[in-house]
């Protein structure tokens, strides 16, 4: 096995060298035709797909994205050459498929494109569930759970500094976690990228992986989270009297960072969900961040314990009330009315979480109503009971965070429900694309996956109609690893239209409108569209 791998490495290297040596003699490859042809609807699934190039090519990545959104890597099933043949697996489903290809020709210039064809009838896949590598999935879950713990105990610990002085050991633990968090955050970005592209750990050093991770909404989250960790480290190390406020600022940024991405923040209405996520996370930060310091204070039986406990119990209702309210609001939005949806994996995780949260709140109530006052008045048994109870709270919070990290893999019922109905009559999507001299107004109708039409109006910067010689539209989805799909538009009465353009899957697509303004002038107007 190992010698085989070595052989492949050697062969690849030799191939590289040969390519370098003979490169100048070749032009770059162009796709001349495909079999089956673009956008065709076939009665039965083809056994293979031929891509005919003007010169020999070597396949780099060949992927088939099916109507269910599942992607299959067919690179191993592809033979290179002038005619590149992709052998399709038997029994591919009816519906619209995308064959996304990326090949390199002898000049070392990789080119890519996508071929759309349908079996039986044209469909639009609902949402892409990439075939994730189990190792990547597990690592993603574990690092996410660790990240949450580092966030709530590390950054939350820094925030506790604004309530009361941190005991030395708790401060050290929080500092360790904040530093760990600053390291873990970029790691989750890498894993997110691998997951987005459906790749394995082997591609960890691929620049595309990182770019894909950053291009997801999670990229902004990681940048903000890292900033929160760094601020928290500063707040924990600093002895300045205002270090606690830096800790609070770090918590605010941490809460904001989680409101930037994720299922809950993506739900409608956004004016409600994003602030709700912010309040929810901020509440947990204040609460969870205080538990470890309190536990240490009570164990040390220091004099500061009483003051800190008093300060904490005064403040904590203001954290827990918004926490519970925002949590309830989000749960209602995500789950909807009672029914089958409550038994989805998402619902089950939420149920388990709520059970733990109820226990947690029960403990907190017991602490506050029955233990805090006697503990403050110096009752030793109440103090050790309180400490034990706080220890259990910490344990429950760790369990909750482990559960919550699992949500990454379960779309909420809210997102699943409209999928089947989405294609009926979605509102058109309108997007403005602009460069220094030209503007394109693009309308995609219906604004959904499946067969759509593009209507493009070309304007100058004063919004006056602008003539053009030709207009083309290119869409690509780097997040899903779908190479560019290009169509030429046809003009009627000043509107450039492309009919029967198949958008195979939902997601964020990069769009580029190429406007041939004059014979020698090309305007490339770029943007991004979200296909629901």
């Amino acid at each position, binding site marked *: 096995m190992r010698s085989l*791998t070595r052989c*492949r*490495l050697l062969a*690849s*290297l030799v*191939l*590289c060298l040969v*390519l*370098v040596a003979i*490169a*100048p*003699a*070749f*032009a*770059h490859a*162009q796709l*001349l035709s495909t079999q089956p042809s673009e956008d065709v609807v076939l009665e039965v699934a083809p056994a293979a797909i031929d891509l005919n190039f*003007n010169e020999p090519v*070597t396949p*780099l*990545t060949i992927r088939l994205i099916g109507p269910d959104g599942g992607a299959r890597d067919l690179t191993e099933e592809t033979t290179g050459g002038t005619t590149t043949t992709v052998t399709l697996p038997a029994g591919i489903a009816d519906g619209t498929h995308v064959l996304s290809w990326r090949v*390199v*020709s002898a*000049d*070392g*210039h*990789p*080119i890519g494109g996508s071929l759309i064809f349908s079996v039986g009838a044209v469909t639009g896949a609902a949402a892409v569930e990439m075939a994730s590598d189990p190792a990547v999935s597990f690592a993603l879950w574990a690092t996410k759970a660790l990240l949450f713990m580092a966030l709530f105990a590390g950054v939350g610990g820094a925030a506790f500094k604004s309530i009361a002085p941190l005991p030395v050991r708790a401060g050290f633990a929080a500092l360790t976690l904040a530093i760990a968090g600053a390291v873990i955050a970029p790691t989750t970005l890498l894993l997110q990228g691998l997951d987005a592209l459906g790749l394995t750990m*082997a*591609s960890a*050093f*691929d620049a595309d992986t990182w770019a894909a991770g950053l291009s997801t909404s999670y990229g902004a989250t990681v940048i903000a989270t890292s900033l929160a960790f760094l601020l928290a480290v500063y707040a924990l190390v600093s002895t300045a009297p205002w270090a606690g406020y830096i800790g609070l600022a770090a918590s605010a940024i941490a809460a904001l960072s989680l409101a930037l991405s994720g299922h809950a923040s993506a739900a409608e209405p956004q004016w409600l969900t994003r602030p709700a996520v912010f309040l929810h996370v901020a509440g947990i930060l204040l609460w969870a961040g205080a538990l470890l310091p309190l536990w240490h204070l009570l164990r040390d039986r220091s004099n500061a314990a009483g003051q800190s406990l008093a300060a904490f119990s005064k403040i904590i209702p203001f954290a827990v009330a918004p926490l519970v309210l925002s949590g309830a609001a989000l749960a209602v939005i995500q789950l909807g009315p009672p029914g089958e949806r409550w038994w989805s994996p998402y619902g089950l995780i939420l149920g388990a979480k709520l059970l733990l949260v109820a226990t947690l709140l029960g403990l907190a109530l017991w602490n506050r109503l029955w233990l805090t006052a006697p503990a403050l008045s110096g009752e030793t048994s109440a103090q050790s009971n309180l400490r034990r109870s706080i220890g259990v709270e910490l344990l429950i919070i760790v369990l909750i965070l482990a559960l919550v990290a699992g949500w990454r893999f379960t779309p909420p019922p809210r997102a699943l429900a409209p999928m089947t109905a989405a294609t009926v009559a979605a509102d058109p999507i309108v997007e403005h694309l602009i460069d220094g001299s030209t503007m394109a107004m693009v309308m995609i109708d219906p604004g959904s996956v499946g067969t759509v039409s593009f209507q493009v109006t070309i304007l100058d910067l004063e919004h006056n109609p602008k003539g053009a010689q030709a207009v083309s539209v290119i869409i690509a989805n780097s997040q899903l690893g779908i190479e560019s799909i290009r169509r030429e538009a046809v003009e009627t009465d000043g509107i450039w239209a492309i009919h029967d353009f198949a958008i195979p899957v939902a997601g964020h697509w990069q769009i580029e409108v190429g406007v*041939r303004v004059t*014979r*020698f*002038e*090309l305007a*490339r107007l770029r943007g991004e569209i979200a296909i629901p």
Partner: protein
Amino acid sequence: MIRSFARLAVATLPLAAIVPAFAHSTLEVQQAAIGSSYKAVLRVPHGCGTEATHTVRVQIPEGFYNVKPMPKAGWTLETVTGPYQQSYDNHGTTVTEGVQEIVWSGGNLPNDWYDEFVFRGSFASTLEPGTFYFPSIQECENGEEAWIDVTGDKNAQMPAPSLELVPAKVSGH
């Protein structure tokens, strides 16, 4: 894993600039000094897909003046002239108009063959250092190859032939 690395290596080859960009239509000399005269050799490595090229058009942007194309056996040479936006000094004579487009037509350059198209002219001393593009178009029976992308995008499918303008040497000529 190893295969991934090998693929990565192949994919990044152009970045490493080991391979000259012979795939595109390019200029032979890729650097010139501002204010100097320049002989442009446009290299045409392939046709439109598999079709033969019958016409080559080159746009002469503002700032490249006193342009003289070289005739080519088997091709009809034409130029499109017009007024310049600015006036230029040609050894004491003020130039206010000149060639804005060169057209070699009626030729036959099959996809499997290679050819070069030559013109010369002067870069105005008022130009700024940076990339200077000569947008060019190959026309074939049923299509064209328009090398007119001047965005500077490294992944551009059809970049316009270009050269780097560098500041003139202080010693002058």
